[in-house]
């Protein structure tokens, strides 16, 4: 049972345009959502996060939107740059009684074309 879903395995955009990466979740108890970026042969790097009590968080070119009623979040990158080409993982945090645990989606490969 996949609790965090990234239904688009890949996305291709032109440099300078907007990239929108989507993520859906099923567990309404998740209290925090994070996006990680991963280059080949490297570990995931934390990008941006949002608390479940907010609907938007912005950090430079990156904005995450959360729609709790739809159990959906999205990451917007504006403007997209070739260096943004990477796999993006959506992750959700849940307190399990003694610890917080992250559940990851399968990732979306973003390619930004010059």
């Amino acid at each position: 049972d996949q609790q965090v879903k990234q239904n688009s395995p890949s996305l291709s955009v032109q440099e300078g345009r907007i990239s929108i990466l989507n993520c859906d979740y099923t567990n309404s108890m998740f209290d925090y959502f994070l996006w990680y970026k991963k280059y080949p042969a490297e570990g995931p790097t934390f990008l941006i996060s949002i608390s479940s009590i907010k609907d938007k968080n912005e950090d430079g070119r990156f904005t995450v939107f959360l729609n709790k009623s739809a159990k959906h979040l999205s990451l917007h990158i504006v403007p997209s740059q070739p260096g943004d080409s990477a796999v993006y993982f959506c992750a959700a945090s849940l307190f399990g009684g003694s610890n917080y645990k992250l559940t990851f989606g399968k990732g979306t490969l973003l390619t930004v074309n010059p």
Partner: protein
Amino acid sequence: EAGVAQSPRYKIIEKRQSVAFWCNPISGHATLYWYQQILGQGPKLLIQFQNNGVVDDSQLPKDRFSAERLKGVDSTLKIQPAKLEDSAVYLCASSLVSTSNQPQHFGDGTRLSIL
């Protein structure tokens, strides 16, 4: 600030052999995680330590996997005996504490191939 260090970067073994991975977390980070990432999937938590105590090992295949974190710093993950399905990247991560708003910092992982 030095990142999470892992070794080796790559390991190739035959099935039924044993293998061990090492992780050195960011200095001062109390929480350490081991994840398994199979090709095409997201990372899956295997075990989580708070200092040198285990707080979650619910998804660790305990018949073949073991992990320890001596003195609350470095950690090792062992597989014995390995199966073909264990081929994956093993990621170590650390965070200051296990609270939801503390991002986890990942190492570059160990890519394990089972022949």
